């Protein structure tokens, strides 16, 4: 390929894609008849950490956005916003999901748990949280809420796992500090086993 040519083409491509994006940013209004076919309403009730929260949610809004910017639950972190790191992991009906890659409207009828919902009413930490402290699991801490949520969901399903099972289950949570060993120690401790 002629590098000159390809470069010019490339530049044109960039500008063209930019224009294309601009032209489609107009708002599409749902017709009333759409309601019956599943067009969504904006004001919805969410079940978050056992509480019902009424919140105005755009159709395209992600759960991470709603949690962080509308409900003030900033424990859920956005590390990549693309489902490639796990920092935004929350538990939905007992199963871990990336909240950056979940539409809020898809969890309307479901129970969402975030890191803020783990402590007991008297402030006692969840066993996973306590174990992560005891094992000094977090380093920078940015991935930690996601690690906590994955560990909590995993132990609820498998109370006495092997270390290898834990490792497989935690694989969707990246830690750039490389604290995997200490997180696994924490999970084994939380399950009542020695790491």
């Amino acid at each position, binding site marked *: 390929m002629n590098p000159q040519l*390809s470069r010019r*083409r490339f530049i044109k*491509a960039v500008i063209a894609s930019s224009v294309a994006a601009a032209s489609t940013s107009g708002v*599409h209004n749902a017709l009333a008849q759409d309601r019956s076919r599943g067009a969504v309403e904006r004001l919805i009730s969410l079940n978050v950490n056992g509480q019902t929260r009424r919140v105005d949610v*755009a*159709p395209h809004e992600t759960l991470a956005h709603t949690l962080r910017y509308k409900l003030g639950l900033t424990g859920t972190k956005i590390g990549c916003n*693309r489902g490639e790191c*796990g920092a935004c992991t929350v538990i939905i009906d007992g199963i871990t999901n990336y909240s950056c890659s979940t539409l809020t409207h898809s969890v309307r009828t479901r129970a969402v748990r975030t890191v803020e919902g783990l402590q007991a009413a008297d402030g006692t930490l969840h066993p996973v949280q306590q174990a992560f402290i005891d094992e000094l699991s977090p380093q920078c801490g940015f991935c930690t809420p996601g690690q906590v949520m994955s560990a909590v969901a995993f132990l609820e399903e498998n109370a006495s796992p092997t270390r290898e099972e834990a490792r497989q289950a*935690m694989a969707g949570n990246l830690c750039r500090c490389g604290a995997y060993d200490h997180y696994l120690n924490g999970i084994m401790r939380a399950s009542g086993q020695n790491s």
Partner: protein
Amino acid sequence: MASFDVMPEVQLYQPVELGDALNLADELGEDGWLLGGGQDTYGWLKDRAKSPRAMIDLNGIEALHGIRETDDGIEIGAATILRDIIRDKRINRDYSLLAQAANRVASPQIRNVGTLGGNLIQDTRCWYYRRGLDCYRAGGNICYAGGPEAMNREHAVFGASRCVAVSPSDTATALVALEATMVAASISGTRTISADDFFVGPDTHIEQMTSLEPGEILAAVRIPAKWAGQRFYFEKVADRDVWDFALVSIAAAMSMDDDTVADCRLVCGGVACTPHRLTNVERAARGQSLGEESAEALAPLASEGAKPLNYNHFKLPLMENLVRRAMRG
């Protein structure tokens, strides 16, 4: 590049009846975007590289869920979550190839929400295309990945035609090996398409990866009983064992007549725009007994006809090695 990151304005429909979804799909045509687990959707939209007018969320449609027994095998609703497939007893007993492949998809959280249909019809990961460039696949008239200096380690060694992108789906290879049939629904009814014909290369349609027509929804996948409980082999080689797509993968189904192969289907992922049948190997394998000797004899057939690019010729020996492993017994 503005490096967009938040979801732009897009309408959302969450129908509960398949009929409503089909009507929406028909009306919206190319302005509509079918939503399964969404893991291949939100990146496109956040990047503003694709700009549909509305998303049609298929997850609320009961008819698209579940694993059912049929007269000839099983039928899996397209909106069935990969997690449920991985854990399904019957699939693990009879079609463990699919469970194994599904278990190597992306990461646990993605398998927790990703649907079988979504995994099958996801778009290619060619990084040039994903950047929103105006390549053939995006409707332009250039391929950035094919040139001798292009960074094409992950691209095709078979079936390239202007576009050199590869199929990223792990479950697709397994379902082609299992001779699955795809059930496509539209307002004018349903039709079935064999897995071999479901996935299309750039010579057939350069802008799409499947033969689904606009307005069609993949409703279900049928797996025939023919391969139930047969000998299977699945392996995926990727840089990292989580998140990453296959450099090369293999899915093999073999029916045995004592020690010899009566019939078999071998399919590689990551080497072509579609799951790539190793028909040479299949032909030569019938009647052979599994073992080191036949593995050695069959392996070189795997890469016959391959046309490697500069950075991906390693896929040839890798394919051969995976065939070796499948045929060693």
